[in-house]
């Protein structure tokens, strides 16, 4: 009997470890070319924007997510005043370095905005299983988008028409080193096609707090910042790709502003010396090293210098 139990426990441990229970399963590298292509189906998420689901989400976000989030990281929000100068719907276009970005952005938004904001999420990642799809749609109001060459689902346009603001991460995935990657054209295309303003948003410190590959924020309530920038509108003579360049420049300026000051960032725009958000071309470890530093001191700022 003992052998039966012990053998069973050993087997469960072996299978749990081998098949990564509770984590995303991985395919051996040499088997990746043989992974069957999944049929692309658009997971229905309309239900998650109906009154009942919205009520559940309100409870989840306000009573669960926000307190939990604040217990794990120290958020710092700037620039929300821009939302007073714009009418929904808008596109929140942000850099993406961590799974913390979405809750940080949502928890930072004023309540009326938060309740009417949906998040574009990778169909192959957040909608690969029913339970992950239902969970993310319910908690974050996500909707699936194809990021691997598939046709953009009709959902984003429908949502904008219905008055929902959208959060889009134009890099398409989390940064592997914390720096900003290449922007894809989907956000700019949506903005020009539907004539909605783009609100640039930047996050800093989320990579340091919970980088790719980490399932929970690092201990110590690391500081994370989110800054909202001036809304941008596509000009009448501007193509989507040109608008996309402008969006990226706005994100770069906003990152500079968050790292320094508004005045210094403005001066650097005038001098055309705004730092490239893609980061310096140095050894990969140095790029990671730089981004793994939290954006400000982890100690609470003091009103008075301690007595010396």
């Amino acid at each position: 009997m003992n052998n039966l139990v012990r053998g069973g426990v050993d087997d469960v441990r072996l299978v749990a470890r081998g098949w990564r229970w509770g984590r995303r399963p991985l395919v051996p590298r040499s088997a990746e070319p043989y992974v069957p292509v999944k049929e692309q189906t658009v997971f229905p998420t309309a239900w998650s924007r109906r009154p009942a689901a919205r009520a559940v989400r309100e409870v989840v976000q306000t009573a669960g997510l926000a307190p939990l989030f604040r217990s794990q990281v120290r958020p710092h929000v700037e620039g929300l005043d821009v939302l007073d100068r714009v009418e929904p719907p808008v596109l929140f276009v942000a850099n993406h370095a961590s799974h913390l970005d979405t809750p940080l952005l949502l928890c930072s938004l004023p309540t009326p905005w938060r309740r009417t904001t949906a998040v574009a999420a990778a169909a192959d990642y957040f909608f690969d299983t029913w339970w992950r799809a239902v969970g993310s749609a319910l908690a974050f109001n996500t909707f699936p988008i194809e990021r691997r060459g598939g046709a953009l689902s009709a959902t984003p346009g429908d949502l904008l028409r219905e008055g929902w603001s959208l959060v889009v991460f134009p890099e398409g995935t989390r940064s592997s080193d914390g720096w900003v990657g290449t922007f894809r054209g989907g956000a700019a295309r949506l903005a020009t096609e539907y004539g909605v303003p783009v609100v640039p948003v930047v996050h800093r410190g989320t990579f340091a707090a919970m980088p790719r590959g980490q399932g929970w924020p690092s201990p110590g309530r690391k500081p994370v910042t989110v800054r909202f920038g001036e809304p941008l509108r596509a000009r009448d003579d501007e193509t989507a790709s040109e608008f996309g360049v402008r969006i990226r420049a706005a994100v770069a300026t906003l990152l500079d502003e968050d790292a320094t000051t508004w005045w210094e960032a403005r001066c650097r725009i005038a001098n055309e010396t705004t730092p490239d958000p893609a980061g310096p071309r140095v050894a990969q470890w140095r790029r990671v090293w730089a981004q793994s530093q939290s954006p400000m001191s982890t100690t609470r700022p003091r009103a008075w210098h301690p007595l010396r």
Partner: protein
Amino acid sequence: MSRPGFVLEVDDRTPPLVVHEGEGFRLEQFPLGTRVIYAPESLPGIDDVEAVITKALLEPEDSEPLPALLQPGMRLTIAFDDISLPLPPMRGPDVRQRIIEQVLTYAADAGVDDVELISANALHRRLTAAELKAIVGERVFRSFFPQGKLTNHDAEDRANLLHVGLTEDGEDVEINRRAAESDLLVYVNINLVAMDGGHKSVPIGLASYKSLRHHHNSKTMLRSHSFMDHEKSHLHHSAKRMGRMLADHLRIFTIETTLNNDVFPAPYDFLLKREWEWSLRDQATVLGARRALSVAPGKLRHKVFQGLRAPYGVTGVHAGETEAVHAKTLANVHRQQRVDVEGQSDVLVLGVPYLGPYNVNSVMNPILATCMGLGYFFNSYRGSPVVRRGGAVILYHPVEPVFSQLHHPSYVDFFEEVLAESTDPAVIEAKYEEAYATDPWYVHLYRTSHAYHGVHPFYMWYWAAHAMDHVGDVVWVGADRSAVQRMGFRAASTLADALEMVSGTVGRSPSISYLHNPPHLLADVHA
């Protein structure tokens, strides 16, 4: 669309992999860098098998259509592969039944009265009535068995053997008299692996010991590299000479079938999947199955495994002239089983499952386990062996010294008497084979009971001759120590121990290849 076979390189993302070991399996964590050879996924089976059979019979390869060969007053014999094929046995209706029923329908329409059916079991055991019925189906069984027209081939019935002649190499061709004296011999085969079929069907399946000894010997096996490659197999060269000679004396209409790789029925079909693609349900099934097997009494475990019936799909049916048919059959087999492998390894790992050709409804004794591992699995290659010359083979099987006195009586004496003297195939062939082959008690049991022929364990040992000659070390994981010692091998408790034991032969960091078999595969090794 079925995915092709491929070679996995074990990395940090690779979960433990299934390794068969007799009536059970284990989950083994292989060292990083181990190459694991996976068979192609199962090909889709043919939807309308009856229509494909009809087409094959009416539009045969290099032959007149079957109905044109059938006339009133003729002697028609239908021979078919015995219970050693396929493995595991096929879920009914057996494809042989479906073919035989169509052949008999044409024969009845043509007014052929003199029809007999023969199970081509060579020196294998006689099939029971139930086993014959499972192969040919109830209609055929009821029509022929009570009249004595559905029989097992008897290789010791001198009155019913006919010495047809000698090949150009002086090999005796002696086969079943009824088959040899028929106006038409229809042979129905299941070509499970590349070794089967072609000229191996009639000249071997219906032969006597006198004829078989020309190719079933240690020398021929040693030079067959491999016997899964009919172009390089001396066994097949000999069979071809005999088959061509027979074709000059006898009208043979060959019907060959190929199956896909659906060898395990639900809920055991997780054994056919690539492990990293197991669903939660598959993982739960594995855990449940392993616990159940660990507490199940041996008899129950045996019954469960032997009761498995594979839901095979038929991938091809071809009929007509033997060589023309076999070329198409082999293409189908290769389509299902061939995997390209670059280079050889220092160590070959093999998991020997519960079943081989000679223990259907029986026990896999140590000789059969050796034959399965070092014979069939080791030889599952084309080009070069998966393991380099002088390398090591690590096998998984309990190798319990348990024998079926009903089916394998001569194996007991072979194990206790012959292997105690020598394990060298050439030595035991010269010293003991004749005595076992002609022993009256073994002949009596072969003819009247359900025993394999007295010489059969020798043949099993010869199957492994090429492997034993090629590699420097053989270690069995989880095996009975005394049993493997008797056979000249060594036993280890774990893979790590086995690798430690063979380190003297292959070094401390050998390259390792694991043949993930079953399902059946054929490694095409480009050395």
